[in-house]
């Protein structure tokens, strides 16, 4: 098949040929001999090929034609060097693939607007009590109602709250993540149901049990039943009517802000009467609002802040007194910002890391191209003689790089979708990243852009080098010692230096994370995590309505599990360490030295049985709780070491009294225990007050505003492997209540491990990219040194023949390699010093310029450089002088 431009080319050739023939026949007519006439015509005409070329230059789409020519030629050239092509393409595929994978995540999470109507106008509101150290909390129900009535900046405001539901009915029961939402939330987000309807404002009042299903739940549990609307299902053993199904793409609440998780079903927020009276409690509601059209962020933010006071003035007087000096403050931020802020640093650092990997890959390919350019001198000379211009040669060389980059890019795209899936499957629960990100058009655009950038990065220098050969003219291309050879030598050295600098930056980054992670894991959590099994016992409020029944259940449970053979100690706690805990404000009797009248924020948990002994939390002074600390005995509490020191500096806390706001009687401190990490490892220890669960007032069990007080965590210390006790423990639980579903069965070692899952994920990812970078850099320096040594074979032969010792030769080769690596390392250290401070937020107990990491990485890199040079150096050392002198 002939392409139009090929035809056109032949036409031109014929046109010029006819010109020659007509001139010749004219000359013959004028009496010249045929032979002379032909020659004269040709002389008159000039260089046919050149006339052809300058004429072609006038054609439209000329560049495309030439580009296709170059492309054909490039394909042939790459096909002739399958080894080179394979290495270059794989290197680029690795670089582009890694970039594409990370870009896919960055694009979906950071760059793309949230999947709601006019997402930039969606705001998140929060309350805070800065004086107590609470910078951002949700809204309490009564505060939310005051805010909704008073505000003028938002066209709509809505609250949501995650909540677990046990779904039962026609199929086996399941525990599902759900969300309570105000009726205004779905319209505010612009979310339309796929089937049925969303909530009406009438459903904001309690008592209307309606539910909206997510697409996923509708599919998996209800077999995509189109007639689902109006059907009934059981949530927490209460019937609910299905009124709607949301489309597949709808996802709410978005993971991130205030621990929100995507829900599988939604029920109306419908605050209960007790919730609406819960002043000063349960700051648990996420609040979303949509800015009025035309209103600027700052104006709305200022108004929201100004409403802090009117919220505070609605508080009951006794509470205002207790909270004296600790005012509420309302704040606002864009919803998008709240969703992405916790992962932004990580993603940007990963993006930077993969860009470095791609740069290293480019440098590697550039090095290969430069080395190969040496063998193309003859080809270049020929093309120049035939009239190829320098620009044309440059374009030809760039076309070859482009072809490499495009093949690498398409391989990279396939590689990227695999990497992305794998990477997202590793995302731990604690890192708010989506678990599934579809590849979209922008990723394809990115791959193309990355391929072009790659082309320029890795092709430009070698292309200039080749086109520079054209300047020297065809006949000057003599021995290897010519100028292009020296240029090549210098270019390669430059590339190796750059590569080492880049790899060093990446290695230092990941080195810092590894060191920080090691320190994190070594931190003392304040308890002994070995040989401890934990289980969550979510007992249902429907069955255990009365407080005495709950207390009785747990006392029996302690008794029975304590008697299992192999169990050393058992205890119950409302919250396990490392999982966060409910923070309250307490008053200190007599003000204490630290507090004055101002309440103090402290983390509060409830215990029964030998909890401290089970977890190995050391007693510093006084006593642990006993089963005698009951509801009818004197109210007592145990505080953590730091809390004791802070509240009563220089005094003995034992015998002092505290109380929780206005909701409890004064409690006497009976013991002081060691500090325990309530937050995941790496966070500073919090102040902590422990309370006997058996002293929890009946009110707590009757009033839902105090949350799920029935559900406790059982901790069991074993003599042998704690996991081996699991079935015996569950057996005992079921012997008390066969309907209980036990959740979160984990050993304490697993709890620790999952508390550092986020940092481990960061470390792993950056570590992988650093390893890839190191590998590429090592290949790069090996390639250059091996090539340079081959080129020097003659010189080495002469040296050996003149009496040089093999180790002199070894030294000669190693010296160059180490010098290049050393210069690269110096630049790398400078760059790393400037860049690593950006990741300070991800580091624990390690400075961003940690000298240990820096020196270790530099030594590691130099050692690898030495190794990479050693192989070619040894080969050089063994050169046979006779063979070497004959070389070429």
């Amino acid at each position, binding site marked *: 098949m002939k392409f139009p431009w090929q035809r056109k080319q032949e036409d*031109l050739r014929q046109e010029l040929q*006819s*010109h020659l023939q*007509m001139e010749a026949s004219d000359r013959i007519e004028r009496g010249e001999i045929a032979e002379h006439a032909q020659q004269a015509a040709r002389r008159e005409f000039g260089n046919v090929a*050149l*006339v052809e070329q*300058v004429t072609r230059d*006038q054609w439209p789409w000329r560049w495309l034609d030439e580009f296709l020519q170059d492309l054909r030629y490039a394909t042939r050239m790459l096909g002739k060097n399958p080894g080179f092509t394979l290495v270059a393409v794989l290197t680029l595929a690795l670089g582009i693939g890694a970039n594409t994978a990370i870009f896919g995540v960055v694009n979906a999470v950071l760059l793309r607007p949230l999947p709601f109507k006019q997402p930039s106008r969606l705001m998140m509101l929060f309350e805070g009590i800065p004086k107590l150290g609470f910078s951002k909390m949700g809204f309490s129900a009564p505060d939310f109602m005051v805010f909704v009535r008073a505000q003028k900046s938002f066209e709509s405001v809505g609250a949501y709250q995650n909540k677990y539901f046990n779904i039962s009915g026609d199929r086996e029961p399941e525990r599902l993540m759900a969300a309570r939402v105000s009726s205004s939330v779905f319209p505010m987000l612009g979310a339309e149901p796929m089937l049925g309807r969303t909530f009406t404002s009438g459903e904001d009042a309690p008592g209307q049990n309606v539910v909206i299903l997510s697409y996923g739940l509708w599919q998996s549990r209800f077999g995509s039943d189109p007639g689902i609307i109006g059907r009934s299902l059981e949530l927490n053993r209460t019937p609910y009517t299905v009124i709607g199904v949301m489309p597949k793409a709808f996802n709410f609440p978005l993971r991130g802000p205030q621990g929100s998780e995507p829900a599988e079903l939604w029920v109306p927020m419908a605050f209960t009467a007790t919730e609406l009276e819960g002043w000063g409690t349960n700051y648990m509601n996420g609040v979303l609002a949509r800015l009025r059209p035309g209103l600027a962020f700052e104006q709305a933010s200022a108004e929201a802040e100004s409403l802090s006071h009117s919220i505070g003035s609605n508080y009951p007087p006794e509470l205002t007194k207790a909270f004296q000096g600790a005012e509420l403050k309302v704040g606002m931020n864009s919803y998008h910002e709240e969703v992405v802020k916790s992962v932004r640093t990580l993603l940007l650092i990963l993006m930077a890391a993969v860009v470095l990997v791609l740069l290293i890959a480019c440098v590697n390919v550039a090095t290969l191209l430069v080395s190969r350019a040496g063998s193309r001198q003859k080809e270049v000379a020929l093309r120049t003689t035939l009239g190829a211009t320098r620009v044309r040669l440059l374009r030809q060389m760039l076309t070859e790089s482009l072809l490499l980059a495009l093949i690498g890019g398409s391989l990279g795209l396939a590689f990227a979708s695999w990497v992305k899936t794998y990477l997202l499957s590793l995302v731990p629960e604690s890192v708010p990243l989506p678990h599934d990100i579809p590849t979209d058009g922008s990723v394809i655009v990115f791959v193309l852009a990355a391929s072009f950038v790659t082309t320029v990065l890795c092709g430009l220098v070698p292309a200039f080098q080749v086109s520079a050969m054209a300047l020297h003219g065809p006949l000057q291309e003599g021995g290897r010692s010519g100028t292009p050879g020296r240029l090549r030598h210098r270019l390669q050295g430059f590339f190796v230096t750059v590569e080492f600098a880049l790899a060093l930056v990446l290695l230092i980054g990941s080195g810092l994370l590894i060191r920080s992670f090691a320190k994190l894991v070594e931190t003392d959590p304040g308890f002994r995590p070995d040989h401890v099994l934990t289980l969550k016992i979510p007992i249902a409020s429907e069955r255990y309505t009365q407080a005495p029944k709950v207390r009785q259940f747990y006392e029996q449970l302690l008794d029975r599990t304590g008697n299992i053979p192999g169990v050393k100690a058992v205890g119950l706690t409302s919250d396990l360490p490392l999982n966060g805990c409910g923070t309250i404000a307490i008053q200190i009797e007599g003000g204490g030295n630290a507090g004055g009248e101002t309440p103090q924020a402290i983390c509060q948990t409830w215990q029964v049985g030998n909890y401290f002994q089970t977890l190995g939390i050391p007693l510093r002074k006084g006593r642990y709780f006993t089963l005698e600390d009951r509801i009818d005995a004197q109210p007592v509490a145990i505080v953590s070491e730091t809390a004791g020191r802070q509240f009563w500096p220089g005094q003995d806390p034992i015998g002092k009294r505290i109380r929780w706001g206005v909701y409890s009687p004064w409690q006497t401190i009976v013991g002081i225990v060691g500090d325990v990490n309530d937050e995941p490892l790496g966070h500073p220890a919090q102040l902590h007050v422990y309370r006997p669960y058996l002293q929890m007032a009946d009110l707590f069990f009757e009033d839902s505003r105090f949350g799920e007080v029935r559900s406790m965590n059982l901790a069991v210390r074993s003599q042998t492997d704690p996991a081996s006790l699991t079935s015996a423990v569950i057996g005992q639980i079921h012997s008390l209540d066969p309907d209980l579903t036990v959740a979160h069965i984990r050993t304490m070692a697993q709890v620790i491990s999952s508390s550092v899952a986020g940092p481990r994920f960061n470390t792993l990812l950056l570590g992988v990219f650093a390893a890839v970078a190191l590998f590429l850099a090592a290949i790069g320096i090996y390639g250059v040194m091996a090539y340079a040594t081959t080129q020097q074979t003659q010189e080495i032969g002469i040296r050996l023949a003149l009496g040089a010792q093999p180790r002199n030769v070894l030294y000669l080769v190693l010296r160059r390699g180490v010098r290049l690596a050393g210069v690269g390392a110096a630049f790398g250290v400078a760059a790393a010093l400037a860049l690593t401070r950006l990741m300070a937020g991800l580091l624990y107990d390690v400075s961003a310029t940690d000298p240990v990491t820096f020196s270790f990485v530099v030594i590691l890199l130099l050692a690898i450089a030495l190794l990479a040079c050693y192989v070619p150096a040894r080969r050089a050392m063994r050169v046979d002088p006779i063979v070497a002198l004959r070389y070429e």
Partner: protein
Amino acid sequence: MAPRYQNRIELLQGTLDLLILQTLQWGPQHGYGISQHIRANSGEILQVDTGSLYPALHRLERQKWISADWKLSENKQRVRVYRLTATGKKQLLSERSRWEQLSDAIAGVLSPAKREGQA
């Protein structure tokens, strides 16, 4: 490096275009014919270089001032024949008047006395 034609084309550009358009006014002609015609009518003074002629022809064709067809010549040879288009005719008129202005102006500069004498 080989000398380039590019410069010479640039020097001649406007003039060569005019000469080609003018030649084609007398009827369709092929490249060789055009070069012979210019040469003969300039008293053998203007020798059009093929490296300028063909690029110019192809450029004028692209600008749609001339069009080209394949024809059989008298000695049964396939030749590419150019003809003036309607827009080409207009272009010729404007180029001619520009050329006349230019040559008058140059003539005026070269022999001011004569010009004054006329006035």
